[in-house]
């Protein structure tokens, strides 16, 4: 069983019902009352107490198939990606972060010791620590609801079905059909982000993948996210190579010095 989200940003109306439903179900605190002046986005980013976040992107480019001058307004409900290969999970030294029976990534708050390794290991900058208890928090994909056969709160609240919850195979086929439909209707720029390992080897695919209408960077997503541990072997090899190199250099230096001393 592999569960996840398919978020179709082309039907998102930016109502933020997902943000509120998430906070209510998970009883997350508010983050303060700050007017940012960044379009309609006042919650700014994902964090320890914001597990769904709607981005608003005003851009001077028309959307394919839309007649609205040289302008469009993109909206996207961002969330933890529940990577197939999760940086946070692999970096967690306590075993607090686990992969669940739903193939999602879950932080066990009673085990988390607040070391923060996961925070730097997430290529998306999703997971974060709460200042008041120091522990790391992120979307659980409503693990408690899934246990009771209920869909996650955000997907339940989404009025336009921009957030669809389900079996990954179903979601991928729905997403594929939607892409073809959009291409037929003139939105040739639509594509899937992180739908599978082939398109995103650095994470081996996302259990929360997206349909986007512009480059990932426009949505504040990395164009080629790579889980740090994925580069582990390479790093060790580099380190070994560097070590050997240094040893050789040191030996050479000593030898040269001796030779030099003789002369």
């Amino acid at each position, binding site marked *: 069983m592999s569960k996840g989200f398919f978020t179709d940003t082309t039907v998102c109306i930016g*109502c933020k019902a997902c943000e509120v439903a998430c906070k209510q179900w998970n009883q997350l605190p508010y983050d303060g009352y*700050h007017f940012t002046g960044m379009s*309609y986005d006042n*919650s700014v980013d994902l964090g320890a107490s914001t597990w769904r976040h709607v981005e608003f992107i005003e851009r001077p480019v028309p959307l394919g198939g839309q*007649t*609205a*001058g040289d302008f469009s*307004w993109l909206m996207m409900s961002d969330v933890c990606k529940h990577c197939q290969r999760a940086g946070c999970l692999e970096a967690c030294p306590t075993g607090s972060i686990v992969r669940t029976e739903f193939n999602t990534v879950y932080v066990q708050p009673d085990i988390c010791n607040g070391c923060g390794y996961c925070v730097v290991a997430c290529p998306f900058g999703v997971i974060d620590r709460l200042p008041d208890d120091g522990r790391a928090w992120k979307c659980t994909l409503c693990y408690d609801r899934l246990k009771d056969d209920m869909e996650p709160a955000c997907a339940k609240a989404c*009025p336009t079905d921009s957030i669809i919850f389900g079996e990954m195979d179903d979601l991928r086929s729905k997403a594929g059909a939607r892409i073809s439909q959009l291409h037929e209707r003139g939105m040739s720029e639509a594509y899937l982000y992180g739908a599978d390992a082939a398109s995103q080897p650095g994470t081996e695919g996302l259990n929360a993948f997206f349909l986007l209408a512009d480059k990932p960077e426009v949505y504040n997503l990395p164009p080629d996210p790579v889980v740090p541990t994925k580069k582990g072997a390479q790093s060790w090899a580099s380190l070994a190579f560097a070590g050997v190199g240094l040893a050789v250099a040191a030996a050479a230096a000593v030898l040269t010095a001796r030779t030099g001393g003789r002369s």
Partner: protein
Amino acid sequence: MAECHPVGFQWVMEAKRRGATIIHVDPRFTRTSAVADVHVPIRAGSDIVFLGGIIHFILENERHFSDYVVNYTNASSIVTDEFLDTEDLDGLFSGWDKEKCQYDPKSWQYKDVEVGPAAGAREMFTGEPKSERGVQVGAKHTDPTLLNPKCVFQILKRHYSRYTPDMVERTCGVPRQLFLKVAETLCANSGRERTGAFCYAVGWTQHSVGVQYIRTAAIIQSLLGNMGRPGGGIMALRGHASIQGSTDIPTLFNLLPGYLPMPKAKWDKNFEEYIKNNASISGWWTEFPKYAVSLMKAWFGDAATKENGWCFDYLPYISGDHSHMTTVADMASGAVKGYFVMGENPVVGSMNGALERQGLRKLDWLVVRDFSLTETAEFWRKAPEIERGEIRPEEIATEVFFFPAAAHTEKDGTFTNTQRLLQWHHKAIDPPGDSRSDLDFVFHLGRRLKKLYADSRDPKDRPMLDLTWNYRTAGARREVDAESVLAEINGYTVADHKPISKFLELEDDGSTACGCWIYTGCYEDGKNQTARRKPGTQQNWVAAEWGWAWPANRRILYNRASADPDGQPWSDRKKYVWWDEAKQQWTGYDQPDFIKERPPRYRPPEGARGLDTISGIDPFVLNADGKAWLYAPNGLKDGPLPSHYEPEESVIRNPLYGQQCNPARMEWHRSGNPYHRAWDDAEFPYILTTYRLTEHHTAGGMSRWLSWLSELQPEMFCEVSPQLAREKGLRNGDWATITTARAEIEARVLVTERVPPLRLNGRIFHQIGVPYHWGNTGRVTGDSANELIAFVGDPNPSIQESKALTCKIESGRHSRNRRAATSGPLAERMSGDQGAPRDLPSARRD
């Protein structure tokens, strides 16, 4: 719609997935525009030119649905010879009384006949009919060829002849090509095979000519054959939950339940007069007496008899306008003693907040029922004028009572929303503490009042004593059972108290009682039909078993029009109801909105009365002639056809007529309510429009007290274009001060391309958008946009004009000592304007 009705908008997105084209017309690029196929930026207050332009396009290119127009609309009706159009009189129709500032609609009538309207301003025009009303007359004076210059179709053509694409471009700021694209798309999606729908909300209603905006859309939909058919219609998106319900069972001053008019002191002297003045001789309103008698039986039970005129004299008679603005103005003048405010926050939600509070300060008592201590409840200690030190709380004599209210999850009841669908909601938990539902409050208030009067022998107290008030109560709190109220609304037979199943069973002999005739059937067989929740997947697409829709669980009104004159569907694709020749009755996917056994070929015989006057091709049965009114011969206070008038406060001169504004608009000439009467005035050069955000709910009583919503939109802001920001030195995220003739408010600046400047006649005009949710109580506070808005109204529903006015904007915060028009230098400066003549041609400023 996505902004304010995100849940309903799921169906728009569903339609889009299935290939529908979504067009969004709005001064701003909103969340709706973001997902629409076409966004049309328009100058706020110019919609009649835009819509009139579409009418012009349809008629000019003969794109109307001819069979539909000839048979189902009043296009062929001949109008009196005396009628003169706004084209003839430079912006006025015939019948204008300059002294009274109102119209006499006599010359607007069909030739040789006086037709009463199905709704609207019935009270103005009732009286002894001069001749037969309705269909018989229509048959006498019609021209099915539509060529007679006095027929409605030709009048329409002449009336909109100057509403050309060029005029649209010059007046609305909509580029010609964009306009043509919209008109073409709409026409291409109408006809036998296809239908198009309009959705509107307060962006149309809140204008001094708002009803005529909607009338213009009604003309388009009737010309294109988009009424009474699946996928067609005009959807009024109501302001909040069950506002449709509060019109059906009205909180309005001039209506009784089911759109029966409130008795008028001047005409309706007794029940017979009331019936004579309001029943029709033809069409469905001939049934009026049955609904009126049944209502009186529901309210006064056994006391209501034929002999005493069904206790008609127990009802209050209205002597004039008692709408919100009139009442508040009276209040500010000291003429109103007490005020109930239930689930409303007029200090923030209504116009000219300072004047609202001035009214509240003059009351003896005020009752507020809400979840939280709203600005209305706290007007005596947390108001701008109190912060400024102009008014001290100890000087306010008003006694304020605050009652905590139950939320919708804490009570049983129905919601009636946009599509006339009644949906029952069940109580999930008891309300906390002393909180109670409004129903419970009103019930127990009534019960206590009746107790107070119990021993009275005074005849004037009879209404209180005879009022039926025996609803079931249950539990320790003696909570009233909402279902027992629903049962009374549904109606019952007086003899054995059995629920009535359809309004056809109602009688005018006192044998039936019914609280609201259009709701009859919602409690059919003693079962709560509104609580039905059969999923759409388990029934046909009309989904008649989800909730219950008035009237008679009909999902599309006037659906006889979904079939052609012979009773057959216009097309297979748009099949809905049709005439079954074998069974000799109407049938279909929905409840046919027609007399079930009336064949399409039926024509009323000479001298027919009552329902017999409805011919087989009269789908619009509520109108006396059974036709859709392209031209309204009666019922509107500001003209039979929509004409473009500029808002009371406009940046430009009316490009179409010498008459600048709606001549029949309502104004309040008082020092606390000054108007900016000039156009093209450098002092107030920008257009201001107000609106709501998804994150907040109306005046904020439900959302500004909740941290999860407040953090999403924490501060009052205004939206301005980068061009205007440059011009005025406004910086994103910084403060700006917005001033109108009434007041000054401050707001954060949001610079965005979503409020584009418009080009009118080569000149650039800026629009400024302000949401209106904030006030000075709650978790997040801010200045209220509605402080800026005047008391000025559409004469038909007395709705304020809050969607288009003039303002200025400056960078920085406002000064604390110069703000409201009810006090301070602004009022003094503007006082010279008071009582200035209305903008009749002779009074225009050049």
